[in-house]
């Protein structure tokens, strides 16, 4: 009797949780469904045909978006930028955050707060200064210059997030590693980084998305269309006046796929119960 009631409440609770999760999930799925649906239509039916599955499926939009948007080139560029920037950010910011969290040097707190404050202060009009600076450094219209700028963009937030996680790392972990003869670099790489794996996953996702969708800095700093990232391809479909919605939606759908793959791949690391593993 008692057991039955327990099961009943358990089921009621899980049904309630599922209803809650499902209703939120539906609001998230609706736009992506709509986007994919539009990608199969034509410009003169896209706002008229209200049926759930369009009457006439037009598969050509994807091919058109790929060629017209010059995706072959831009895709590769975006992958290069994303990989370089994200790797750079993870390494550079975790090193810095580890030092801010666990090591001592004079001026540590001031520098840390500088980073955090920098995150808060918008820099309008900084594009003029940045452009002049990059021209002087001869980094204008180079991949390297753009990558450095994008690393800078993501640095503060990543340092803050890393530090929050490193702060939670048990001291015993570190002590054990030190006894094993690990240096500071060794502890950072072998102890702190695995411990902060969920944070790394979040940072990778956040920055990948940021770089993947970035367009304004690319326009400003790059000139040669051979260097442009994916978003440049998407802009072509949004004319100053006319927009080719189905082709744009096809392009947006294709552009969203890699990010979703990155997310799928990374969220596994968020899921694993890490602390238990490491301690055990």
């Amino acid at each position, binding site marked *: 009797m008692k057991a039955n009631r327990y099961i009943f409440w358990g089921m009621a609770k899980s049904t309630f949780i599922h209803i809650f999760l499902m209703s939120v999930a539906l609001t998230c799925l609706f736009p992506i469904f709509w986007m994919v649906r539009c990608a199969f239509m034509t410009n003169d039916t896209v706002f008229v045909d209200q049926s759930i599955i369009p009457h006439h499926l037009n598969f050509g939009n994807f091919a058109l978006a790929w060629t017209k948007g010059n995706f072959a080139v831009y895709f590769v560029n975006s992958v290069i930028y994303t990989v370089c920037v994200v790797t750079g950010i993870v390494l550079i910011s975790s090193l810095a955050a580890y030092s801010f969290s666990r090591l001592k040097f004079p001026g540590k707190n001031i520098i840390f707060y500088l980073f955090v404050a920098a995150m808060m202060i918008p820099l309008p009009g900084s594009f003029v200064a940045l*452009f002049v600076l990059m021209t002087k450094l*001869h980094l204008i219209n180079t991949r390297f210059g753009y990558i450095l700028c994008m690393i800078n963009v993501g640095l503060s937030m990543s340092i803050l997030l890393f530090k929050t996680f490193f702060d939670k790392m048990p001291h015993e972990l570190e002590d054990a590693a030190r006894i094993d003869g690990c240096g500071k670099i060794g502890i950072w790489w072998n102890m702190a980084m695995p411990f902060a794996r969920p944070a790394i996953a979040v940072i990778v996702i956040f920055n990948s998305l940021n770089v993947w969708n970035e367009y304004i800095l690319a326009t400003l700093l790059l000139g040669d269309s051979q260097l442009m990232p994916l978003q440049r391809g998407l802009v072509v479909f949004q004319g100053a006046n006319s927009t080719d919605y189905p082709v744009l939606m096809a392009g947006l759908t294709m552009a969203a796929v890699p990010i979703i793959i990155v997310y799928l791949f990374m969220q596994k690391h968020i899921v694993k119960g890490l602390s238990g593993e490491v301690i055990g």
Partner: protein
Amino acid sequence: MRNLGIICFSLILIVLAGCSQPPKPSNKIILWHWMTDRNDTFQKLAQEYQQQTGVEVNIQLFAPSDAYSQKVIAAAQANVLPDIYGVLDKKSIVADFIKAGLVTDLTGAMDADGGQWKNSLFDKALADKSFEAGNIYGVTPGIYGVPIDVTNEQMLYNKRLLAKAGIKTPPQTFDEFVRDAQALKRVGITPFVSGWGELWLLDCFASNYAFNIMGEDKIFATFRGQVKYTDPDWIKVFSIFAQLRDKGVFIDGIVTKGNKYAEQDFALERAAFAFNGSWCVNVYHDMNPNLDYGVIPPPPISTAYPLKIWGSAGSSFVVNGQSPNKDKAIAFLKWLTAQDQQVVLARETNNLPSNKQALVDVSPILKDFAKGMDQSTHPNIWPLNEDPSVSEAFDKGIQDIIIGDKTPLQVAQEVQQAKDLQRSRGSI
């Protein structure tokens, strides 16, 4: 690891620092533009030009136009502007570019061969980047830009929806327009749509009627501060919006509507009238090829002065004043605005050509738009403009009237306050 990174970084800096070159004349000119819809055609024409002349024109697209403008401002600061580019800003900013030596005076080239080049183009389009003698900007008089196409903003009407409401001819006066709107409402049709979430389009509509009610002299006198915005004529301008609001002429949500959405509404026959620019022919065609519509100037409310519409160069290019390839750049622009190339541009992009002889091949509705050029004006060809902060108060005030938050009189007083503030700031 980190040491390696630093070493790499400094090495690259050193290497890169070594390879800067001063610009020198070459057989290659670079063009920056922002017109996504015309990029393919430009590229094609550039290839053709290279085959004909051997001069390579590197066309680089930076869009959307906001990003493009930022890039041009930044490049001007760093002095790395390309040979040909466009300035998408107010006349006063164009003047600053000219005074900084970043724009070449094209008057000589335009007047060569008895003014052949100049005469082939629409006057109003040329005026967009021209400066008259004695202009208030202190710029040496002359022609500084080459118009690629022309646009103007007029009223569109849906013939099918009008017929449904029993209206046979489009309205000739403002009263007729209001009356037609009532007829449309009776059969459940929304009368009017426009993308007035974009303030310039709202400003354009108001300006059309200001010309109609008080004439240009009084408008310019207001800009100079000699006439107040609380003048009965200006209140009459503001009252137009109150009247249209009260009569339910506007589509719901007009003040936050982007022009793209407004174009959708008109193309999908959700409204019978629209106020839009000549590029709309292309847009409507894409969304609804069967749309049957016509174009008229906004129906005048007064007989005191002629109603003027806005019309000018849709886009213009300028030649970098510091370019070592000035002559080649000018030659290319001359070729680009010659009849044959203009016909290609007009046909492939559905824009009104800036070359008068290229009008032969455009659609009838575009030809109707072109007729409006005779009664057109534009802020860029006025001798002076209102201060942007006052314009903002003006446009936002009209939005306030449309949503019913303020009366025309209140708005007039607030705009005048903004004007007084601007004048007091200017006098410091």
